[in-house]
């Protein structure tokens, strides 16, 4: 075992690369009135931070804007982050 523990093995962990939401310049805001639950945003989010209820995890969302571009209902708006980082 001692031998094995010297191997460079990493273990899975949420936040392994920090809270990537702090990278954001623009934040996606979903208008639930316009959303028809088509699922495109969740399918296209490279980082899988949109859940089955189309809630966006802002702790990790990097603000790439793909979801807003691809939403067929134009239900997602990218809004500039303020000076105080929320979340």
């Amino acid at each position: 075992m001692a031998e094995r523990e010297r191997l460079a093995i990493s273990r899975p962990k949420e936040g392994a690369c920090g809270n990537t939401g702090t990278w954001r310049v623009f934040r996606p805001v979903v208008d639930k009135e316009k959303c028809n639950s088509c699922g495109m945003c969740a399918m296209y989010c490279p980082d899988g931070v949109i859940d089955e209820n189309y809630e966006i995890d802002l702790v990790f969302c990097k603000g790439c804007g793909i979801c807003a571009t691809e939403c067929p209902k134009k239900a997602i708006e990218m809004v500039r982050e303020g000076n105080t980082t929320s979340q």
Partner: protein
Amino acid sequence: MSGTSATEYICKCTSACAGCSSSLILRHVLKAAGPDTVLVVPACCTSVLQGVWPNTAFNIPIYNVAFAAAAAVASGMAAAFESLGKNTNVIAYAGDGGTVDIGIQAISGALERETNFLYICYDNEAYGNTGMQRSGSTPMGARTTTTPGGKTHKKKDLDRIIAAHHLPYMATACSAYPQDLVKKVQKALSIKGPKFMHILAPCPPGWRYDSSQTIEIGKMAVKTGLWAMYEREYDNLTINGPTKAAMIKPTPLEDYFKMQGRFSGLKEEQIRTIRGEMERNLRMLKAEAEGC
């Protein structure tokens, strides 16, 4: 998305750039493959974006191996699983540099030995991880850090090199079409023996476009006909719908180039060369599909 589980195999989040399409590809590849899968990753963006020891964002076993070695390591791993009587999926996930340039002998060997694995090359058309140097897969005219005036050589025709190995399954795909990608991964994994996928992976910092346009750029690559989508089972070619449409009514190539800063210095004669190469590729695919 239909056809795959809701389970995610990548924890929030990797350190990939915002809007990275390679991350989108891998997310769907893992969902399509399921938990009984090991990944073999040579040096590339995917080795770096996992995180720093002792943590990783990946909830699946990954072997990070030397740049040229992905297909060789996967061969050994596939042999080990076979001798244990296990059906674990062995998937090599490598960049274009690690595939068309430095890893090509290992892939050729693994295909010739009929290794039971799936090799996926995600093609961001340069050495992304080290700062976008030109690779054999960089298209003509594209500016990279080692071709600041635009690449003078053509993109290597990797797929016909792979096809020359007459393998049971190979396919091209594009990150902008995740449903198609998932179907192809599932099909590949249902077949025993060597399988290969070449997936176009637009890269916002490397291709110099806004991260929100990642999917639009991938779709445009297909709609112009520049990136052809097809499947080849042994020597049986099927051209996929979006590429059939592009063969009939293509979007002008210029629409694709002008979306990306890397093509800002593209010369008329280079556009002619690229168009000529593209038309030749589509002609050859069409003739092959029609069996002549």
